[in-house]
């Protein structure tokens, strides 16, 4: 029996734990929280007022009974001695370790950011913060609601855009689309990092009167005169604002330090998820330096790859993305991989339905990944074929 210690029971770690056959692996998941949070739920909480409980479930219930769950915080990972230390003094040895602790959000990097977060809430830091943002938006009857980005590498690349569309929908439903201006500011040259996708999104932003600012990397927040100042030297005034913070890799100590890159992310082979320099250590999800979108899809696909590799199968992750972008009633997916930029896609009701279906089956997919694997596999293979043929969808 091989001992596998998985750090983090989120969208990557929990799936991996449940995929590993119990006959071959003794699996332990370490997570500081007893609850598993469906992070995309922040959008529904912040912009539709859905109660956070809908997106929170006890991790113990989501992990298969044979998986050990240690509710504790990781403080040190010693890759050379194969040991993990926790805050409460536990020491876990392993045959394989998998980093799946996600990215850390730094609200202290930008001057004024923490105060901004505490004043209005946001839809990135926590479900409680998302609830606060919803209350703030409900109290907004006029003025400018600004969504800005401090660093172009953040989880869920379409997050700010979904925030813009969904907040517009919220104001629109309250009859305030002429009174409240939704402003979206992004660091890149067009509405979305990929021009192909930007060309599809921009008309939708224009049609709704959402103000778009490009080349805007939020750098400083002044709450007294209510302005966000960018690296590029521009200013945006706001009445309510939320800024997606710089992200970093895990802050707990990892020995050797060299496995972390300049932003603290765990350096991996982008195809196999193997930690650079080690045969018995892997990393999946937002905590890695993989050159692809930080998203649940990435974590899920990497979890499948690591599960296969631990069983001796040469599985590889293609860098495949499938980021959903939703507006009122329609949706699209950003479909790309390491070797192909995003394919042209159209907004459609069908894609929105697919996304709704995915959200509805999330808990089942975590608990019984082996049941949903064939469905996801068929979907990814079909859409991979579209990528290979250079087709749109």
């Amino acid at each position, binding site marked *: 029996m091989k001992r596998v210690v998985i750090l983090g029971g989120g969208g990557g770690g929990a799936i991996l734990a449940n995929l590993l056959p119990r006959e071959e692996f003794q699996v332990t998941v370490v997570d500081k929280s007893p609850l598993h949070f469906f992070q995309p739920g922040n959008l529904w909480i912040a912009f539709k007022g859905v109660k956070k409980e809908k997106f929170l479930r006890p991790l113990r219930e989501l992990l298969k009974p044979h998986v050990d769950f240690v509710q504790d915080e990781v403080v040190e990972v010693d890759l050379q001695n194969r040991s993990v230390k926790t805050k409460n003094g536990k020491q876990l040895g392993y045959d394989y370790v998998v980093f799946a602790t996600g990215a850390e959000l730094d609200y202290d990097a930008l001057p004024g950011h923490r105060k901004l977060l505490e004043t209005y809430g946001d839809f990135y830091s926590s479900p409680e913060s998302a609830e606060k943002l919803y209350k703030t938006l409900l109290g907004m009857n006029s003025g400018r609601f600004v969504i800005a980005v401090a660093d172009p590498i953040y989880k869920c690349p379409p997050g700010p855009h979904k925030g813009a569309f969904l907040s517009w929908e919220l104001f629109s439903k309250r009859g305030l689309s002429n009174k409240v201006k939704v402003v979206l500011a992004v660091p890149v040259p067009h509405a979305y990092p990929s021009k192909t996708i930007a060309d599809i999104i921009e008309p939708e932003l224009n049609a709704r009167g959402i103000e778009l600012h490009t080349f805007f990397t939020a750098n400083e927040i002044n709450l007294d005169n209510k302005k966000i100042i960018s690296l590029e030297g521009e200013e945006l005034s706001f009445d309510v604002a939320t800024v997606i913070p710089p992200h970093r890799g895990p802050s707990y100590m990892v020995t050797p330090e060299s496995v972390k890159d300049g932003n603290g992310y765990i350096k991996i082979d982008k195809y196999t998820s193997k930690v650079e320099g080690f045969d018995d250590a892997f990393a999946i999800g937002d905590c890695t330096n993989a050159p692809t979108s930080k998203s649940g899809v990435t974590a899920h696909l990497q979890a499948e790859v690591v599960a296969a590799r631990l069983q001796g199968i040469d599985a590889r992750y293609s860098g495949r993305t499938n980021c959903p972008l939703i507006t009122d009633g329609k949706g699209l997916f950003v479909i790309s991989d390491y070797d192909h930029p995003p394919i042209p896609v*159209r907004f*459609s*009701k*069908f*894609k929105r339905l697919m996304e709704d279906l995915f959200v509805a089956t999330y808990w089942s997919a975590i608990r019984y990944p*082996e*049941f949903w*694997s*064939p*469905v996801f*596999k*068929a*979907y990814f*293979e*079909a*859409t991979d*074929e*579209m990528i290979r*043929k250079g*087709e749109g*969808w």
Partner: protein
Amino acid sequence: METILTKERREALEKLLDMLVKMNELGLLDTIRDLLDPEFIGRLSELLMTPGTLKLLDHIDDLLDLAGSIDVEAIKGNMPLIKAALEALSREPKPVGITGLMRAMSDPDVQKGLGLMVELLKAIGKTKTK
């Protein structure tokens, strides 16, 4: 337990259980259980999730609107025509020159067909003049 099983819930639960008994007798519960097999689900998914079906399904709302806008009663009678046309297309035709065309035009079937083509051309032309 008394508070959980209200009178309405007890009634609903009894009906549900009776339904399950019936399904079990019919062997349906066994069927459902057997269908919940990763291999079967995999094959079904492969069938339904191809680039072709995904592209088709992406337009399902438009396709349904289009299908709904067609006057089915009007075209029902013409199905044999469409069938005949599609089947004729599959036969390798011999190339026909001017003299061949003249000769063909004395064939009553071809004449009827030509009359139909004129109606077709008129109908198409009308949509352009609107």
